[in-house]
């Protein structure tokens, strides 16, 4: 067969060197030849290279990802089958949600990189037929304190990423209602930008990304294709180097306005019943959407490139197929419905074109002016990428710390230092830039343990939280990953929610290095174990490998986004204290005597005050964790708690200070607690023992709370009271007492980030 030999632009020859430059190994090249029964041409090589990149094929992580529990009676669409998983939430409604990374584009161009990341994940959700309802974002940067070049660059990245998310999310009209931001050296030069979107739909609205029905027309709709973002999927599957700066064409510019129109048009289109299949053009653009829809539909797809709306002249087939221009969709329409479809696109002022049709021969066939330029079995391309079982190094277990190795710092100063750590300090500066009240459903504003949102259309209340302590993961990836999942579920439980699904973003270093691969495997197994234990399915996720900068890989960061359901809006609990008459309790152990490091391994106390990342991460007892959730659920449902806030980074003292500082102005008062004198103060106050929540209890409910805690088997300790006529936080241990003025804690907590960013 002769393929497009007479084309005007002569394509480069496929040489071993060209193959390597495309990130394919020679073995992979041989496999391609076998699939085709001949050598690929240059365009076909490009097509294979993006589809077989880690980003699209998960070739290095697939075998590991199979360890996740993905099923369950509420799962309507499983992880990996479509663009996002779908979970039943009752009354005929379901949710689709997923997290996606845009780390490398954001490193090169923070504003557009983050913005297009938001655009991409939103498309994944409405492609499923769901109306997107809210966003979360999980961000990591190098340290932003100080005047060094590095710190300044980190601030620039941080400001740019937040502005980019704000720009895209606000414009399209989705509330960004939660997330996390951490700062750590390991992210110098390689920030992490993970964005999450959740959408809601009726069961019968689930749309499939499959090309079905021979002869059905294939439509292209959305922005014109340009040379931007060429081969971004391949870009994401490489390490960042100095030369990455030269990869600038890989950066795309987003147009949230177009996306808004595209979203409305697609939802209208899906409701019209004209659509046989639909798929967004994300990574690997037109290539990915054509071969994946064909593969899922057990069919073939044939498209003509001359019909594709183009922004630039003289684009080659290679460029058109590999472009990652944003805001584009592929829609397969039931034959005979073309006019209705066109009307909808025209109503929304969107460029569109009928570019091809569904065939039955199983090929992804691409023509240019009638000549075949690509002809590849779609299924092989989409599904048959090699799966690698990478070599995993044996990881060194972390060395436990003795209690005597934890230096003592005056608690007064230590608390101030921790609250002014940018990773702990309030992220208000961030979320003030996000419209978090649009769609009038944010029942808890950002700043609570989990975001809580009422969808006005379905009347369903959902909660979502994203978590990961990467210091724990660096010391022990399995333990860190388990804690990430548990913390996420605990955050949900603190608002009154019960988890229904998890989506994860695995941010790791180059998997070809056995140490990195071992971290990946350990983390996956840790996530799987906890999800399995609680019967919560992993409904999808994303893998971002090659997160390295010249100074090495990032600390492993398996970001967990969990979604929960809240039975009734009357069960919702905020994180902050709200009634000056309340008593304060700790649910869980004040000190984990079974933990070798007493909850100081990988703690913020050691990191912030002594620059150390060492020890064994806190111990996690899943049975105890389960009992805690049960207790919270029970107490929330009968409204026995006025607030619940979990102890995480910085331990009990930080959690207490947060719950107090976040109190609404009109009910402000003081708080006093006293702790049993069973260990040195810094150990009691700052250990990061797991499975602990600070709650505030109305006076008349105290007895019942204690009774329930006892019945379920959760330790409950009365810590103290809110003090109506006061404005201090005070803690006493034995005969000693420490006191903080509101003003000093407040400025440490709320002013740190604005002061760093606004100068």
């Amino acid at each position, binding site marked *: 067969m002769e393929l497009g030999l007479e084309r005007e632009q002569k394509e480069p020859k496929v040489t071993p060197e060209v193959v390597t430059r495309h990130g394919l190994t020679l073995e992979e090249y041989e496999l391609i030849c076998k699939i085709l029964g001949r050598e690929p041409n240059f365009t076909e090589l490009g097509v294979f290279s993006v589809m077989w990149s880690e980003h699209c094929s998960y070739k290095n992580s697939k075998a590991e990802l199979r360890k996740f529990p993905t099923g369950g009676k509420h799962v309507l669409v499983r992880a990996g089958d479509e663009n996002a998983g779908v979970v039943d939430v009752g009354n005929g409604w379901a949710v689709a949600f997923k997290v996606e990374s845009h780390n490398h584009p954001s490193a090169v161009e923070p504003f557009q990189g983050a913005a297009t990341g938001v655009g991409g994940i939103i498309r994944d959700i409405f492609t499923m037929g769901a109306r997107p309802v809210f966003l979360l974002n999980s961000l990591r940067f190098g340290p932003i304190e100080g005047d060094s070049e590095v710190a300044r660059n980190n601030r620039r990245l941080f400001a740019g990423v937040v502005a980019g998310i704000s720009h895209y999310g606000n414009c399209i009209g989705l509330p960004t209602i939660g997330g996390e931001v951490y700062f750590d050296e390991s992210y110098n030069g390689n920030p992490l930008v993970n964005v999450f979107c959740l959408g809601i739909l009726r069961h019968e609205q689930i749309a499939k990304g499959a090309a079905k029905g021979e002869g059905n027309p294939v439509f292209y709709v959305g922005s014109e294709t340009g040379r931007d973002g060429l081969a971004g999927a391949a870009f994401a599957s490489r390490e960042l180097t100095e030369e990455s700066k030269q990869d600038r064409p890989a950066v795309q510019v987003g147009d*949230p306005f177009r996306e808004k129109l595209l979203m409305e048009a697609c939802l209208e289109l899906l409701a019209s019943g004209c659509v046989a299949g639909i798929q967004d053009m994300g990574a690997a653009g037109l290539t990915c959407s054509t071969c994946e829809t064909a593969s899922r539909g057990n069919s073939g797809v044939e498209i003509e490139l001359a019909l594709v709306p183009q922004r630039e002249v003289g684009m080659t087939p290679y460029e058109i197929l590999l472009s990652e221009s944003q805001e584009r969709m592929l829609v397969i329409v039931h034959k005979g419905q073309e006019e209705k479809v066109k009307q909808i696109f025209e109503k929304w002022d969107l460029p569109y074109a009928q570019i091809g049709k569904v065939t039955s021969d199983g090929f992804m066939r691409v023509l240019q002016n009638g000549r075949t330029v690509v002809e590849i079995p779609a299924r092989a391309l989409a599904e048959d990428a090699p799966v690698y079982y990478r070599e995993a190094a044996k990881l060194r277990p972390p060395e436990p710390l003795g209690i005597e190795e934890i230096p003592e710092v005056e608690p007064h100063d230590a608390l101030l230092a921790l609250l002014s750590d940018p990773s702990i300090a309030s992220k208000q500066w961030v979320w003030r830039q996000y419209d978090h009240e649009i769609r009038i459903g944010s029942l808890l504003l950002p700043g609570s343990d989990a975001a809580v949102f009422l969808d006005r259309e379905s009347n369903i209340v959902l909660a979502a939280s994203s978590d990961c302590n990467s210091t724990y993961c660096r010391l022990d990836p399995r333990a860190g990953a388990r804690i990430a999942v548990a913390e996420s579920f605990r955050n949900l439980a603190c608002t009154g929610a019960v988890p229904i699904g998890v989506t994860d973003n695995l941010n790791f270093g180059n998997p070809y290095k056995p140490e990195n691969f071992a971290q990946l495997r350990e983390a996956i197994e840790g996530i799987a174990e906890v999800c399995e234990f609680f019967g919560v399915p992993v409904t999808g996720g994303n893998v971002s490998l090659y997160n390295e900068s010249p100074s090495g890989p990032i600390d492993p960061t398996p970001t967990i986004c969990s979604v929960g359901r809240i039975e009734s809006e009357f069960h919702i609990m905020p994180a902050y204290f709200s009634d000056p008459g309340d008593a304060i309790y700790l649910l869980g152990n004040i000190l984990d005597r079974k933990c070798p490091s007493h909850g100081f391994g990988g703690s913020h106390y050691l990191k912030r005050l002594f620059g150390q990342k060492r020890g064994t991460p806190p111990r996690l007892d899943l049975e105890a964790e389960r009992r805690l959730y049960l207790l919270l659920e029970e107490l929330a449902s009968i409204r026995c708690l006025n607030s619940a806030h979990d102890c995480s980074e910085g331990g009990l003292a930080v959690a207490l200070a947060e719950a107090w500082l976040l109190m609404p102005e009109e009910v402000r008062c003081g708080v006093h607690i006293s702790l049993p004198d069973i260990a040195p103060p810094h150990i009691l106050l700052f250990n990061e023992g797991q499975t602990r929540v600070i709650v505030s209890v109305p006076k008349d409910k105290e007895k019942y709370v204690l009774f329930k805690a006892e019945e379920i088997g959760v330790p409950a300790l009365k810590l103290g009271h809110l003090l109506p006529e006061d404005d201090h936080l005070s803690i006493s241990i034995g005969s000693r007492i420490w006191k903080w003025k509101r003003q000093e804690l407040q400025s440490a907590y709320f002013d740190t980030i604005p002061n760093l960013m606004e100068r």
Partner: protein
Amino acid sequence: MQVGYRSIARLAVVQFPGSNCDMDCVWAINSLLGLKAKLVWHKETKLSDFDGVVLPGGFSYGDYLRPGAIARFSPIMDAVRDFAEEGKPVLGICNGFQILCEAGLLPGALVRNRSLRFVCDRVWLKVENKKTIFTSRFGEVDVIRLPIAHGDGCYYADEATLGQLEKEGRVVFRYVNRDGVADVASNPNGSCNNIAGILNEKGNVLGLMPHPERAVFENLGLTYGRLIFNSIVDYFLSDEYRWS
């Protein structure tokens, strides 16, 4: 309830490409007694079925060039102009306010926030004029709290215009602190004279940056927005409206 020959007053919520608080307005308005909201696509040319018009918030045309710059040329805007001319109530919220200024239905302009950042927060406002068709229900309530969310909310007009607005009581809402004092710290965007919302000369067109539709449902913690919509209901029930 009787409004003209109808039992309920009908509000058109105009949907421009890029409007994104349109559904919020519909949900909020439809939760209140005496009002019924319906979406109207910007390519429509008639508003004769409606008693009032709401231009909702959002990013019409992506805010490209300037917020509201392109939307003001939408086909529906001629009808909105006629509507305003007839003295019927027109409410522009956030992007809707920007569109009304661009269209010349309200004086002045809304420019970039002085911080150059988008700001989403809840702010205190003083209701400076309670004798308008949008504020008659405020009664004893002077200082209220409403959500804001905008990147271009800094109200600007020349001295003469500002003087006139102040003199004629057309500054309806002003950013203040919780004690009702308009100081620099309580101005979220740098607006001249801390202006958050203004009225046209005739008194039937109100533009404001804060979002009353986000303060209607109890479970969001703020309900001052109801007073604005309820004032409109009262107006439709008034003799003034019935005989106009």
